[in-house]
């Protein structure tokens, strides 16, 4: 636990977190500081490209093995199962109706790639290795949770879940830009290996953390605005869920990671993926498939509560736990 406090402190005083805090503060103070939409999107494309590419290079260094396959499957199963746990927890802690509860639950089965990136960045500053293919696991965990959420809604009989999932929506989810770029750059990194990395490392490796700082600043602004706009609509029960659920998710991720025999870094990342909640892919899918669910609830929860929690306290906590679990 000592290690946790030391790490939490280092983490909290890293430029990454402080930039996020600055963003939240600026938004709460109603400053007009903001990033142009195009710039924010460009930053996120850069991050996805860099993280995917580096993951691919790491896998090409160590070769493909069985662990990759089993971890991928574990990720998919986690993504599909976590919504049910989230749904149960929501029913206990809050009085959300079935539709809204299911929609929120879907977000928590899926993942937040920025939280993942922040996790890798903490690992690097701790000098810990992780399995390169965790990037692919992240991509695989984006979508299954959406199906679980729709199943939860249709199981309630309110309306037919299948009719909500037309072929169009399927394609949109599976081929959404983030997944394609992540997987695509992973494959490119895998093919070109260290050779390719050397050519572009002064673009995707050295400035990476700085770009992440600016991106987290923007995320902070966005999260802060969400919090400001949602004052009132977030009950104590929801707040409790937003903090409890990532811890539950991380615990399940830890068990899975240990069972898979991942490294300490790998376990941490699987915990982070399980603990984090989507705020890009799933909300867009929900607007199409479940327009009657309130985006004010699921976005505020995932982006305004769970995301900052994971970023600040969660990751150090999970790392301490991952060390215990793996004896690392």
């Amino acid at each position, binding site marked *: 636990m000592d290690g946790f406090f030391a790490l939490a402190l280092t983490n909290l005083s890293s430029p990454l977190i402080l930039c996020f805090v600055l963003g939240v503060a600026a938004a709460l103070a109603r400053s007009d500081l903001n*990033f142009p939409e195009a710039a924010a999107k460009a930053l996120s494309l850069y991050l996805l490209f860099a993280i995917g590419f580096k993951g691919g290079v790491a896998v090409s260094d160590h070769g493909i093995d069985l662990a990759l396959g089993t971890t991928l499957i574990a990720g998919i199963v986690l993504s599909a199962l976590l919504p049910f746990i989230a749904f149960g927890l929501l029913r206990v802690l809050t009085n959300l109706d079935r539709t809204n509860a299911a929609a929120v639950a879907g977000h928590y089965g899926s993942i937040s790639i920025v939280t993942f990136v922040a996790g890798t960045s903490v690992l690097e500053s701790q000098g810990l290795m992780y399995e390169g293919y965790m990037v692919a696991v992240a991509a695989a965990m984006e979508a299954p949770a959406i199906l679980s959420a729709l199943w939860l809604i249709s199981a309630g009989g309110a309306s037919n879940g299948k009719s909500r999932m037309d072929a169009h929506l399927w394609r949109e989810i599976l081929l959404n830009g983030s997944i394609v770029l992540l997987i695509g750059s992973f494959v490119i990194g895998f093919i070109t290996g260290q050779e390719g990395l050397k050519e572009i490392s002064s673009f995707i490796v050295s400035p990476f953390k700085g770009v992440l700082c600016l991106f987290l600043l923007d995320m902070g602004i966005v999260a802060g605005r969400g919090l400001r706009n949602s004052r009132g609509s977030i009950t104590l029960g929801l707040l409790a869920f937003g903090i409890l659920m990532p811890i539950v998710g991380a615990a399940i991720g830890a068990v899975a990671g240990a069972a898979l025999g991942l490294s300490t870094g790998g376990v941490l990342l699987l915990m982070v993926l399980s603990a984090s909640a989507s705020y890009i892919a799933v*909300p*867009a899918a929900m607007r199409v498939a479940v*327009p009657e669910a309130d985006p004010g609830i699921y976005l505020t929860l995932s982006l305004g509560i769970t995301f900052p929690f994971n970023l600040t306290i969660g990751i150090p906590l999970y790392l301490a736990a991952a060390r215990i679990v793996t004896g690392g």
Partner: protein
Amino acid sequence: MQTHDAKRVAIIIETPMKRRLVAAIEEAGVSGYSILPVEGGSGRSGPWSREGQVGRAGGMSQVICVIRPDRLDTLLEAIFSVVERHIGVVTVSDCQVLRAERF
């Protein structure tokens, strides 16, 4: 200058629904429309703004169709089938067009 009566239909809709709306419009036999970005706004579901938007899942877009008056009803029905369950605003107004042969 010779102008012709026409109808201008403007739909403000969530961006994730845009593709579906356009598909419905095309199915109704209307192949002319324009899409304009919307920067922000407010409605029954509260205020929002494209920049610094929570999650950037959404945002709204405006789709504008200029059509011959006699095709209005078919188009409105097609539009309605998409916007029905969703937030958004549909307005129709009279206008005149040059080069009516285009519509």
